């Protein structure tokens, strides 16, 4: 088990965004997290990555308690993430975006950096090679020298994934990876997520789009900050509670 979450709760004033969620994530699986707007999915990600501290509850990553750590410390431990909005450094090129994300690097301290020693140059060459490989993986190699802010929405989202991969995560959190993409881009992204998963990275993804459920091993449904159902994608699709959460209870779901 790579991630274990016990009784995670977050109150914003009187509003409970996340209330007592327990989730266990197994090594190497793809876990889908779905739920209607405002169900608390993004808050859940922000809690795991330390952007906001939880009110109650524990987050255990690889047997270590990471509750209350700062975002950069959690990133160093190997949790990568993407964002729903604003997912990049706008004034860097695509390649520079990925290179900047290589923060965990062996054998080069600031003195090496300052004097541009062979150790540093070798390290930077290695980082460049790795970055190009990641760009190949997500299919952005052709636009590597263009400014990130000039890229279409789909590319910017993929760049978010590339950046998260640069920290060599063992757990990757994807916040709505295919929202707002066209069908072609969706297929490419799903392909890239599959390839990433095959490299042994555990993935949790938040999504509205039911299409992405196909690649999940397990799906958790959240509504009003609580876990309502958990199961295989097929079970989730047929679950009456899920249908009610998405379509509302006023409708006749049988037609």
């Amino acid at each position, binding site marked *: 088990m790579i991630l274990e979450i016990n009784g995670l709760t977050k109150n914003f004033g009187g509003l409970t965004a996340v209330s007592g969620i327990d989730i266990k994530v197994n090594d190497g699986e793809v876990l889908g997290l779905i739920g209607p707007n405002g169900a608390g999915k993004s808050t859940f990600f922000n809690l795991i990555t330390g952007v906001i501290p939880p009110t109650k509850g524990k987050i255990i990553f690889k047997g270590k308690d990471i509750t209350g750590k*700062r975002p*950069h*410390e959690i990133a160093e431990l190997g949790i990568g993430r993407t*964002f729903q909005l604003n997912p990049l450094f706008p004034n860097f090129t695509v*390649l520079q975006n990925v290179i900047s994300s290589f923060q965990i690097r062996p054998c080069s301290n600031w003195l090496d950096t*300052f004097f*541009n020693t062979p150790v540093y140059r070798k390290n930077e060459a290695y980082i460049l090679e790795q*970055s190009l490989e990641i760009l190949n993986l997500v299919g952005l190699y052709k636009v590597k*020298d263009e400014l990130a802010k000039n890229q279409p929405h789909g590319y910017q989202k993929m760049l978010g994934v590339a950046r998260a991969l640069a920290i060599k995560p063992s757990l990757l959190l994807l916040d709505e990876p295919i929202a707002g993409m066209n069908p072609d881009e969706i297929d490419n992204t799903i392909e890239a997520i599959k390839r990433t998963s095959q490299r042994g990275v555990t993935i949790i993804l938040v999504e509205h789009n039911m299409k992405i459920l196909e690649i999940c091993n397990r799906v958790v449904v959240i509504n009003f900050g609580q876990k309502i159902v958990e199961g295989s994608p097929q079970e989730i699709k047929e679950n009456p509670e899920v249908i009610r959460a998405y379509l509302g209870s006023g409708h006749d779901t049988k037609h």
Partner: protein
Amino acid sequence: MGSMIAARDSSSRRKNYTQIILYGILICFLLFIPLFFQSPYVLHLFILTLVYIIAAASMRFIMTSGQIPLAHAAFLGLGAYVSAVLSKHVGLSPWLSLFIAAFVAMGVGIFISFPFARLKAFYYAMVSLFFGVGLLQAIESLGKLTGGLAGITAIPTLFNTASKVPYYYCFLALTLVSLVILYRFEVSRIGWNLKAIDQSYLVSSSVGISEVKYRVLAVAIGCFFVGLAGGMYANYNVTLSPSSFDSSVTLWMIIYVTIGGMNNFSGPIIGTAVLFLIPQYFSGLKQYAPFISAAILFLVIFMFRNGLVSIPGLLMAFYKRKKSTSKSR
């Protein structure tokens, strides 16, 4: 960042050579300035320009992480007063006190930047403005050491001559070394991380860049060099008064940086040279200096958003476009 440079188009190689030649010509010109300009007043202006270039360049270094250090002139004053007091009252050699001043400014900078490191642009600006005012008040109130409002006089100088030529060469060397060090930091991973933090705190923390660590580092490096510039000023100018370091000086430094070009390393250098040296040099224009600066400021804001440094590039692009359209006809 080596790979950043390697990743750029290989066609930039030839441009590199022309750049080296241009810098060579510029440095030769700077070396011969005392021969061209015999007047001590003009040399005095050049020396002050060198001091302000270090100050403005170090200020820009802090600004790359998105913070606006409004206490920067106060740090210049801190360096100046520390060096002055150490060399006058303690009796240290001015050469030693100069560097102690730089380290003291760096220490104070680190001390204040820990609590303030998570503040962004305007909040940091407010906090640092008040810190700067407080620092100057503290200097004024230590009347016995610093001479209070009247200032401190008869500070030991670096050289034992009335000529300004040795100062010019010495300060030129110190400025060049400082600029080279600042440049190395800027193009290294430290500089890139600072720019990344400026663009998005959320994204940079999600890839493991510690905001506090890099902002404190930026302030430490920036304050070291501004402290050094302060020490140089004190042991050159012989007298100091608190009014030379109040917040209007900081505002002038911000203007040097932004007009020269915030996004370019040579921005503050060109900004200082154009806005400080030229109005002072044409002494008839001296009283109009604020108006000239305002005119240049308007010009930059409306036409050259990236500062004066961007003008050659824009002219080049314009020339190329014109050539290609005339060919197509």
